[in-house]
């Protein structure tokens, strides 16, 4: 099998049994791999009556056909599961070099079911795969465990995916940490594994991935590499990574200041956390994921102040936005927070959203020192932030509430706290203002895993007009790429969801494979020459659409409808208080964009449910039948 490794592993933790199977080629042609195969397998193995913390929940860890190949940025990992936080569809994606190693070991994916009677970790050493005792790893931070495992198993080249101590203790939004500094961050995939008593996976491989037509594949990869490096966004992104976006947010009024009460940071405070300060005083050098020419990560070292001596990798935009959410503008604290979240295995975003909610509740007097274990949750108070974070990391005291996520914390607090819980479908949002960026608002509303911008990632503003004309001829590209134009955005978001589903299923990095960085038409020839299976761009997009429909069907089966495709009340009803887009909110435009979106998707506008016509056109008749029998299919 070219491109693919050809084998998969089924791990049954109830019986501590591991079975090797052949990777099914009929499925891979329709779902590609990665997130796509994950969605298909989750749909067919986790029926609606199964709860997330039940042993019947299934964790799918999947590489794509291009993972580990010379295709640029081929190191991404996808994990799919029923989320312990939301109880709906979830998948999470990470950078690093775990999936290449999985492919070199000879496997395309792992399916993990059941619950072990003792704490275990999975050790994949090529042909030899076993579950090993993990008792001695419990409670230790992921950096320590990564080193312990590599020593214990006797090879510095081992790659690890670890569940941190916070998830082991019981928080619901535990992430899966890849080689210390990358994570499958969102939706609590780490917690799902912790609930199965599985503390991580270590892998080492020595085989190669065979390529169907090596010289043609090489040409395609070189072409894509050249177009990435010459794209307009490359110079700044390769130096600043996502961190550079914070400057843009401040300029365009998209900051989540104090739990999104305001959209800009007071200017005199902003320079502490701007990219200038970061590059001059914190960044030491660039670091990259597997086979990536963008190297958007940076090694930082803190020279002075409260966190002097701290070192680590890649403070993301997210980390600085979490600080902003709590009214904090200290760059040292941001870097430290990132490190701590990686060490304890905590999703930075959900933790940030939950803490911001708590800070606002405290500010409004809905909770007092009595509830917060004596910690004054005042805006901008770094001491308090650190203390309450520790409560979450150890799942103790107030941390036992906060560790359950923003939605449950709001419910626990009550007294109207739900009105400022920044979540969609039960998961915290990605820390950005959306009232002045309608299509991003739509992306958040429709994302299958809730609270998320990455499912769609609709980078249209300022994009390549020529390319947009090529791809979407029917509407003027100037209109499509304008921030405030509503027309056509529904169709755009649907298209981007399909496109990015395909990227996530191939094992590639969607931040590097943005439309405009590469021409999407170049993808299919590369995939075809790698695998020997014939794809054109239409077929590839159709795979993406099929994957999105399976995710939608999974949620529809659980009872989600149009009413769940929405955004927090704060964005729907409260106008932005200050900044370049003062006065705007999404309430007036979201319904119209949703209508357009459902129409583009071929789903029912009134209910938001999938239709038989659309599902059958994608070869999903079985799913249409099942949804119909449950009353969850749109009535035609």
């Amino acid at each position, binding site marked *: 099998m070219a491109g693919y490794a050809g084998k998969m592993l089924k791990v049954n933790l109830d019986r501590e049994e591991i079975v090797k199977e052949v990777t099914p080629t009929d499925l891979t042609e329709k779902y590609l791999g990665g997130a796509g195969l994950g969605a298909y397998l989750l749909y067919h193995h986790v029926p609606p009556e199964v709860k997330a913390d039940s042993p019947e929940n299934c964790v799918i860890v999947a590489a794509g056909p291009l993972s*580990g*190949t*010379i295709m640029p940025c081929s190191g991404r990992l996808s994990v799919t599961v029923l989320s312990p936080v939301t109880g709906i569809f979830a998948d999470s994606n990470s950078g690093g*070099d775990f999936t*290449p190693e999985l492919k*070199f070991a000879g496997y395309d994916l792992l399916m993990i079911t059941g619950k072990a009677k003792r704490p275990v970790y999975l050790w994949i050493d090529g042909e030899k795969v076993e579950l090993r005792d993990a008792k001695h790893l419990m409670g230790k931070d992921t*950096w320590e465990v990564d080193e312990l495992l590599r020593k214990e198993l006797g090879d*510095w080249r081992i790659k690890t995916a670890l569940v941190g101590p916070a998830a082991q203790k019981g928080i619901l939004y535990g992430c899966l940490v890849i*080689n*210390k*500094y990358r994570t499958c961050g969102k939706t609590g995939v780490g917690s799902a594994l912790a609930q199965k008593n599985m503390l991580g996976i270590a892998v080492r*491989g*020595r*085989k*190669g*991935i*065979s*390529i169907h037509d*090596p010289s043609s594949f*090489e040409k395609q990869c070189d072409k894509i590499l050249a177009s990435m*490096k010459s794209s307009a966004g490359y110079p700044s992104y390769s130096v600043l990574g996502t961190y550079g976006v914070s400057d843009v947010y401040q300029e365009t009024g998209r900051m989540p200041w104090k739990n999104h009460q305001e959209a800009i940071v007071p200017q005199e405070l902003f320079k502490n956390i701007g990219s200038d300060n970061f590059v001059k005083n914190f960044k*030491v*050098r*660039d*670091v*990259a*994921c*597997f*086979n*990536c*020419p963008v*190297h958007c*990560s940076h*090694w930082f070292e803190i020279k002075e102040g409260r966190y002097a001596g701290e*070192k680590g*990798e890649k403070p993301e935009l997210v980390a600085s936005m979490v600080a902003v959410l709590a009214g904090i503008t200290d760059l040292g604290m941001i870097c430290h927070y990132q490190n701590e979240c990686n060490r304890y295995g905590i999703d930075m975003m959900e933790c940030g959203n939950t803490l911001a909610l708590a800070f606002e509740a405290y500010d409004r007097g809905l909770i007092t020192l009595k509830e917060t274990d004596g910690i004054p949750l005042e805006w901008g108070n770094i001491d308090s932030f650190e203390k309450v974070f520790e409560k979450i990391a150890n799942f103790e005291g107030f941390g036992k509430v906060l560790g359950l996520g923003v939605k449950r914390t709001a419910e626990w607090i009550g007294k109207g706290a739900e009105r400022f819980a920044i979540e969609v479908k039960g998961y915290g949002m990605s820390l950005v203002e959306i009232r002045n960026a309608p299509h991003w608002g739509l992306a958040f509303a429709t994302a299958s895993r809730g609270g998320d911008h990455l499912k769609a990632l609709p980078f249209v503003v300022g994009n390549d007009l020529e390319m947009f004309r090529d791809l979407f001829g029917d509407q003027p590209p100037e209109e499509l790429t304008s921030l405030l134009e509503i027309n056509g955005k529904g169709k755009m978001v649907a298209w981007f969801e399909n496109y990015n589903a395909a990227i996530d299923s191939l094992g590639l990095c969607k931040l590097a494979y943005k439309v405009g960085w590469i021409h999407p038409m170049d993808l299919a020839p590369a995939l075809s020459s790698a695998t020997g299976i014939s794809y054109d761009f239409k077929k590839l997009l159709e795979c993406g659409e099929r994957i999105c429909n399976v995710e939608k069907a999974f949620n529809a089966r659980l009872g989600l409808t149009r009413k769940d495709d929405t955004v927090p009340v704060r964005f729907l009803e409260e106008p932005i208080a200050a900044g370049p887009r003062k006065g705007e909110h999404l309430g007036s435009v979201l319904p119209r964009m949703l209508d357009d979106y459902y129409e583009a998707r071929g789903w029912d506008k009134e209910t938001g449910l999938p239709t038989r016509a659309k599902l059958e056109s994608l070869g999903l008749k079985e799913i249409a039948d099942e949804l119909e029998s449950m009353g969850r299919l749109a009535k035609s």
Partner: protein
Amino acid sequence: MGSKVLAVDMNLCTGCRSCELRCAFKHHQECNPSHSRLRVVKFDRSGIAVPLFCLQCEEAFCQEICPTKAIQRDTKTGALTLNENKCVRCRACTMACPFLGLQILSDRKVVKCDLCEGEPYCVKYCETGALKFIEAEDAGIQRAYPLAEKFARPYLKRE
């Protein structure tokens, strides 16, 4: 004889391992860093990555120890090349080399860097220029400027 050598600037290496991948792909048409003639070791507590490769010694331990004289100098590139047909796979060279310049593949074949006939692929695909193919005399002196810049920084700021 070729006067260029492979050199690395560790401050520029991002640990991406494209060099490993492309080396293996060029020589074996498959994606397998285990078949690469160079290896990248990461020190992830310090954010440093170090590529290791054959240093093409003038007086080479591997050449001296080889019982079949399979390792010979290519006069055009200056590279020590391993003749597969003469190699008996005793692996003595891999034990003698202090620099991990030779590797053993999964079929016990021994391989080493041959500088790709004078146009090293690893250098071609090193995005940051951490890996260079430069005149031997320049190999060390490349570091002078960035090093001096560090000392000069307090003075440069005043301009």
